[in-house]
């Protein structure tokens, strides 16, 4: 840093950019001093140093501020396809829709199948199809959720749950404006998934270990799943549940009650 250059006209200036890595320091940029005739190529290097997710993160902050302005807590719920996310949500609405005014933003690549399962359970639902001509986005991002917020009446809500697209990779990268991230991880997916998808498992505050009623039919026990999650995310709340039988679900409902009240 601070590399000084003396020009023919006696001016001295420095380039304060920190490149952070080794590369040949070519000075092809046109400084506009008029003293580089025959030297400048017209090519200029512009230091950018801007996060590629910056625009998404700005939009996520706008969403978060909109939720906060209405006293709403927002949860981003993620999982692989078929983990039981919608079944968990249906049971959650049956338990909590009388206590809290809940809005669901339902991410789905092309169908309304999940939204239909959640209808009639006392929640406002805003369906967000992500197909865009390229076969459908694999995640929800902040601008998409911003559009879906328009389908909810924020004035009347306490809690918004964003049901993300089923996928253990991409959704972990995109802040959508939530206050916490949760995931549903079912025991039928195998106990190695936290190690294979560490970015997702590290990103969440709470893990619902679902389908524990099926553990007797599998090779691993609940403790094995819990220790694998702990290996990548020692701080996560881990709640073994069966959305089908209701086992363990009261712990999840209580976690959600505490979360919803933290306005």
């Amino acid at each position, binding site marked *: 840093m601070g590399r000084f250059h003396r020009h023919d006209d006696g001016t001295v200036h420095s380039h304060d950019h920190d490149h952070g890595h080794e590369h040949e320091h070519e000075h092809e940029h046109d400084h506009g001093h008029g003293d580089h005739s025959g030297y400048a190529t017209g090519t200029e290097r512009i230091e950018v140093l*801007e996060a590629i997710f910056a*625009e998404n993160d700005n939009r996520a902050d706008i969403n978060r501020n909109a939720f906060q302005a209405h006293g709403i807590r927002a949860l981003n719920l993620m999982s692989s396809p078929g983990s039981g996310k919608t079944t968990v949500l249906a049971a959650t609405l049956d338990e909590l829709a009388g206590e809290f005014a809940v809005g669901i933003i339902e991410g789905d690549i092309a169908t309304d199948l999940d939204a239909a399962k959640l209808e009639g359970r006392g929640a406002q639902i805003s369906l967000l199809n992500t197909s865009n001509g390229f076969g459908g986005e694999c995640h929800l991002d902040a601008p998409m959720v911003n559009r879906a917020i328009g389908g909810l009446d924020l004035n009347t809500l306490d809690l918004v749950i964003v049901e993300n697209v089923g996928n253990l990779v991409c959704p972990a990268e995109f802040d959508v404006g939530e206050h916490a991230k949760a995931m549903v991880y079912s025991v039928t997916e195998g106990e190695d998934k936290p190690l294979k998808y560490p*970015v997702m498992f590290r990103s969440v505050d709470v893990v619902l270990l679902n389908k524990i009623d099926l553990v007797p039919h599998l090779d691993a026990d609940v403790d094995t799943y819990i220790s694998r999650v702990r290996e990548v995310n020692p701080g996560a709340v881990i709640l073994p549940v069966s959305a089908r039988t209701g086992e363990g679900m009261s712990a999840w409902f209580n976690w959600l009650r505490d979360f919803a009240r933290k306005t």
Partner: protein
Amino acid sequence: MHELSLCRAIAGVVKTHAGERRVDVVRVQVGALRQVVPDSLAFCWTIVRDDENMPGAELELEFIPAEVQCHGCGQQSPIESRFSVACPQCRSADVAVVCGEEFMVTSVDVT
């Protein structure tokens, strides 16, 4: 998996800095913990750059290895496997990621 949207985001960042000038090179830093497939990103870039009116823009990727600072043993070390951020010295998972999560446009060459 989502490299097409990532390329659009890259193009968005580039355009705000390049303005109307021709973009020749786009340099992007990618941390080892980012779930970016380099071949897929390079392929998607060839589609997006035409769409975004910067057909000659080359994408240069710089990879940043991941390092963790262990809260257990206090050591800072490069991780051994991209599947785990556990401390290579003491195996603790209670670590802070020091680097490896970068995903940014560092510079662009324009004419």
